[in-house]
């Protein structure tokens, strides 16, 4: 057998299995040594050597996360802080000032963030296309007002950081934190695990964050994630990251989970992956991310591409991201054409694979809105064969976020 085209060069082991320690061009994370010790299979991802899976394999890691808790190294992502240079000391005034600097780049309500709140938002270009999706949070602590916590995608972080810095000018400074470790702990048992390691974590509500202590050191802990499960993302200084990681893995409820299962988990959760399910041509409305477009911002039409987005919200939409259940045959991967019942190609798959939870292939892709109704029968074309598929609601597997933790 040969591994997929692009991953394999005939006489060499597939690129997928490259050893990052022999590839100087790949960046490491504070946890790289741990991944190797755990038997992680390292692959190149966004310039980093990252574990795609551990010896348990993608299927088991995926199902373990849904049943217990999975620990993920996501240090390749781009955390940063935007810090107002001159502050008044009035938290509301200072927050408003820093929020006003970033709002021209995104479609979300940043001004309206409450202390400790985290919001999913989108960087847009002038054509209303997505430059990236990202998280922006307002710190809870009074002395941190006038700062924003920002986490962008790995593959887009250089451009994003440049745009944010340029927008800030001299009024604020962007402090990169991507030399730290970012660890995600996800799954129904994540809160119980984390509370024992970082007291106070379980009291956080979904989409909030706080500075909490781990053995005397401050970390930033958010209740958020990319799996559809309850969970947390923890920004840790590099020197203590391995100790934290080992504490988490020391709990029998936790298994290490690689990027392979991270991808299958987010696919089941219906969450788009930037660069695949959305790009610079995709609008938030096409991508099914209208919830990320703030009502206040829409009314003011004060973000890039606001005109296109208003038009699309009014119904002038040519394509829409939908979920597909593949009813027979092989998984439909990224790039597979989607056809209507007459056999006419109407769109293509942007992410697809096998759903371990549903034990069936699932996919997401873009099709014209008239075909996007739930239950519409379509087909996906895999290796020149049409396979029956059906438009289904997303998420494919229900989200289990903990919006308000029990007291």
């Amino acid at each position, binding site marked *: 057998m040969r591994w997929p085209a692009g991953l394999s060069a005939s006489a060499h082991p597939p690129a*997928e299995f490259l050893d990052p320690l022999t590839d100087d061009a790949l960046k490491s994370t504070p946890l790289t040594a741990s991944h190797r010790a755990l038997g992680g299979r390292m692959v190149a991802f966004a310039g980093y050597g990252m574990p795609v*899976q551990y010896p348990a394999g*993608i299927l088991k890691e995926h199902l373990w996360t849904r049943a217990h808790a999975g620990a993920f190294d996501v240090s390749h992502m781009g955390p940063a802080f935007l810090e107002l240079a001159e502050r008044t000391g009035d938290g509301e005034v200072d927050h408003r000032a820093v929020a006003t600097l970033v709002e021209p780049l995104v479609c979300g309500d940043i001004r309206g963030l409450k202390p400790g709140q985290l919001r999913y938002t989108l960087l847009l270009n002038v054509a209303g296309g997505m430059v990236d999706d990202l998280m922006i949070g307002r710190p809870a602590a009074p002395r941190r007002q006038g700062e924003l916590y920002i986490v962008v995608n790995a593959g887009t972080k250089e451009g994003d950081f440049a745009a944010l810095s340029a927008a800030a000018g001299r009024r604020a400074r962007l402090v990169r934190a991507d030399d730290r470790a970012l660890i995600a702990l996800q799954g129904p048992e994540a809160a119980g695990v984390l509370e024992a390691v970082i007291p106070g974590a379980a009291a956080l509500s979904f989409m909030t964050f706080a500075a909490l202590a781990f053995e005397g050191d401050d970390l930033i802990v958010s209740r958020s994630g990319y799996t559809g499960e309850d969970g947390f993302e923890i920004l840790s200084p590099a020197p203590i990251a391995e100790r934290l990681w080992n504490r988490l893995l020391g709990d029998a409820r936790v298994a290490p989970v690689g990027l*392979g299962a991270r*991808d299958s988990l987010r696919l089941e959760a219906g969450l788009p992956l930037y660069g695949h399910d959305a790009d610079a041509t995709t609008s938030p409305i096409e991508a099914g991310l209208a919830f990320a477009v703030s009502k206040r911002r829409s009314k003011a039409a004060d973000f890039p591409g606001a005109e296109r987005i208003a038009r699309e919200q009014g119904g002038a939409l040519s394509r829409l991201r939908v979920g597909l259940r593949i009813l027979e*045959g*092989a*998984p439909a991967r990224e790039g597979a054409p989607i056809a209507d019942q007459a056999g006419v190609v109407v769109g293509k798959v942007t992410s697809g694979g*096998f759903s371990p939870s549903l034990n069936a292939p699932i996919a997401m892709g873009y099709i014209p809105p008239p075909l996007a109704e739930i239950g519409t029968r379509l087909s996906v074309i895999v*290796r020149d064969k049409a396979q029956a598929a059906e438009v289904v609601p997303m998420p494919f597997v229900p989200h289990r976020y903990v919006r308000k933790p029990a007291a």
Partner: protein
Amino acid sequence: MRFTKDHEWVDLAGDVATVGITAYAAEQLGDVVFVELPAPGKRVTAGEALAVVESVKAASDVYAPISGEVSAANSELSDNPQTVNDEPEAAGWFVKIKIADAAQIEALMDRAAYEAFLGTL
């Protein structure tokens, strides 16, 4: 049993060769979730695409190690593709091929040579 550099194995009995992927390939691939096999009667040529094996992550082609006519496909794999991981060099076989030329099999690696080859990867 003989082996290819593409990690297929061939086991000849009479003029029928059973073909599968090696334990090394199955391990590298990870959890197999789907296997696409040719229909019996199909003529195959050594080096041509024979089957497709899909893991959670990706699809990989399996190439015909020898030429001949497919005489059977392992229908067990459509219900239980995981068999490829559990028993890659036994119950996880892919197809049986009625061979055209036994010399093609002689030209493949024996187990010692294949294991030496794996040591170079």
